[in-house]
């Protein structure tokens, strides 16, 4: 006789405002629900404020991606003002944004994702002791090194942005903090030191060698090529993740979205200088079939979200955020809306960027085994390899006394959007300004895509879909589900850091659905 139970997955250990519920039958997940449990109201708070206020308020949405929100807000206003920042301003913005990516990728990989390798559920695994030595919280060799090394990276934003935290150096038309030659040299030194550590500790090889790994077979060969590869943290991740089967779980819908990111300066060695070109391309992929991105195909559904209902999905320029609790019993279950592209649920993040950019390794891995928690996390862990060389190029190209600002004039009327890739994937700001005042503001974050609830058609969000089919070995400790969810690096909110007495580590409730 089959047994059907519901697990409330203890994801307040991941993000305090994300809850995941899974229905498990005979040890296999048959259904799942991701629920955002807190209403933020940032979009509504912006209405009626000055046109530039989004530059100050939206970076407070996230303590990790504040530079991303700052640049997205500025890009939306630049579209209204029809102003393009000078090349050196683009270089400085790109480098600062990449710092956020690199720091978060490394911290998430080794302080959050790999910490799950050192839990008692794996104590009988041959690699368990090594996992504990590397990743045990507050003690693991790698965990300690990651904090020591990544803390210096943020100094680059402080130098380019004039201050940290709360750098507000990005404005419509460019940046307001002009780096000196000494500033740029200091940034290059900090980046060089980080590259050396990342290559030695994380990769076990030069970035250029890793970028030569171009398919699944070459990945296997790379692992065995040198002891430094095998024993590096990347090598250990590959071995451990495959040993526990992360390459076979977390498939999802197999649809991927990237808005594209890092506007290319007019003349740069980092990429082809075509108008509007970006280092990371925009696109939408079903499987491995990549299509051109069209922002008019973005829409948000609220059928299963705690907002006043409307038919179908709405483009962000037509969207609204009207909190509304009741609805049909059991139907609404999240404060997150359900973004869809051309009516389809799509995941976003480093793996989507790799697929849409045509990265041969990730195309090969998807071709061999399909999307999985392993491939998704591998893409994040190695994304710095595609970013650091461009950062070095742009810091070298930025010129002494260069032009960093072009006046946008007064921003009175119009509508614009700022779309880009931030650390966790596609971020969009859509703003309408009238008489110098914000009349409409809609934001879709990467986790809104990934942790989306069901849409009008009842289609599960990407993370929900990725959980279905996962086998649970111990329902009292469903570590498998934690791996899958963390492979998306969800971030529902990280803006309230109150010190709490009696904060629990979460629990698992097993009972009737």
């Amino acid at each position, binding site marked *: 006789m089959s047994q059907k139970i519901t697990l409330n997955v203890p994801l307040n*250990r991941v993000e305090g405002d994300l809850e995941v519920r899974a229905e498990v039958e005979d040890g296999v997940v048959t259904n799942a629900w991701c629920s955002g449990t807190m209403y933020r109201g940032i979009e509504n708070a912006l209405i009626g404020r000055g046109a530039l206020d989004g530059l100050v308020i939206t970076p*407070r949405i996230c303590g990790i991606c504040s530079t991303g929100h700052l640049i997205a807000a500025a890009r939306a206003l630049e579209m209204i003002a029809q102003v393009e920042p000078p090349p050196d301003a683009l270089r400085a913005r790109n480098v600062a944004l990449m710092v956020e990516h690199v720091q978060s990728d490394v911290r998430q990989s080794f302080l959050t994702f790999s910490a799950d390798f050192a839990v008692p559920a794996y104590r009988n695994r041959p690699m368990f002791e090594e996992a504990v030595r590397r990743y045990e919280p507050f003690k693991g060799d790698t965990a*300690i090194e990651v904090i020591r090394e990544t803390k210096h990276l*943020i100094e680059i934003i402080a130098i380019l942005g004039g201050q*940290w935290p709360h750098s507000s150096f990005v404005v419509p038309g460019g940046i307001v903090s002009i780096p000196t030659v000494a500033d740029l040299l200091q940034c290059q030194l900090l980046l060089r030191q980080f590259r050396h550590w990342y290559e030695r500790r994380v990769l076990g090889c030069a970035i250029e060698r890793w970028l030569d790994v171009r398919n699944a077979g070459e990945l296997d060969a790379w692992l065995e090529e040198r002891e430094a590869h095998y024993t590096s943290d990347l090598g250990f991740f590959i071995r451990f993740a495959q040993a526990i089967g992360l390459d076979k779980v977390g498939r999802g819908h197999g649809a991927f979205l990237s808005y594209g990111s890092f506007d290319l300066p007019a003349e740069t060695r980092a990429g082809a200088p075509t108008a509007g070109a970006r280092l990371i391309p925009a696109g939408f992929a079903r499987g491995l079939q990549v299509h051109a991105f069209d922002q008019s195909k973005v829409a948000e559904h609220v059928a299963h979200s705690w907002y006043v209902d409307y038919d179908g999905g709405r483009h962000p320029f037509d969207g609204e955020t009207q909190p509304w609790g009741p609805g049909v019993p059991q139907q609404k279950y999240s404060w997150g809306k359900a973004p869809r592209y051309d009516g389809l649920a799509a995941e976003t993040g480093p793996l989507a960027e790799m697929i849409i950019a045509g990265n041969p390794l990730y195309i090969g891995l998807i071709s061999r085994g399909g999307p999985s928690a392993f491939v998704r996390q591998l893409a994040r862990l190695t994304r710095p390899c595609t970013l650091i060389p461009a950062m070095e190029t742009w810091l070298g190209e930025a010129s002494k006394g260069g032009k960093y600002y072009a006046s946008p004039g007064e921003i009175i009327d119009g509508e614009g959007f700022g779309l880009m890739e931030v650390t966790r994937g596609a971020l969009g700001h859509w703003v309408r300004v009238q008489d110098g005042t914000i009349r409409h503001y809609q934001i879709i974050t990467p986790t809104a895509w990934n942790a989306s609830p069901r849409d009008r058609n009842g289609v599960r969000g990407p993370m929900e879909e990725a959980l279905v089919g996962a086998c649970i070995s111990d329902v009292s400790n469903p570590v498998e589900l934690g791996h899958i969810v963390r492979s998306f690096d969800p971030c529902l909110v990280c*803006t*309230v*850091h109150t*010190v709490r*007495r009696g904060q629990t580590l979460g629990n698992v409730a097993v009972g009737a659905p």
Partner: protein
Amino acid sequence: MRRIICIGNRYAAQDAAGPAVYDHLRRLQLPAGLELIDGGLAGLDLLRYLEDAELVVFVDSVSGFGAPNTVLILAEEEVAVLASSRYDHSAGLAYLLRILPEVCEGVLPQVRLIGIEGDPDQAAIGEAATLALKIAGGSGYANRPSEAVRPVAAD
């Protein structure tokens, strides 16, 4: 160097006490050698501000320590034990203080937290600001154990 670091989110009422104290203090003439920092949401990224300081006084919202408007002094170790064992997007001051001895590249600073309960009134903000200045100025508060200095019953 001594520092007062006010942390929190001025756009979330339950976490806005730190920024409110920052706004209060920035209008004052601070003594030489004392630096005031708007720590915002930075969490672990505030580590660099601890590595070259002899004393750091954090000011932050707290929850579960007393009635609304209560202002408390907490020692570093009292906060560090509250840290989740995992780094995540909620990792704030407790995580920072828990990991500090393992990763600090300079001399470990003395750390105190002035905690403020609830959505405090201006009197509590002023009291917390005054207390921060006293501790950062070395008035002796720094060596006292956890203590509520302004318990005010909720309305």
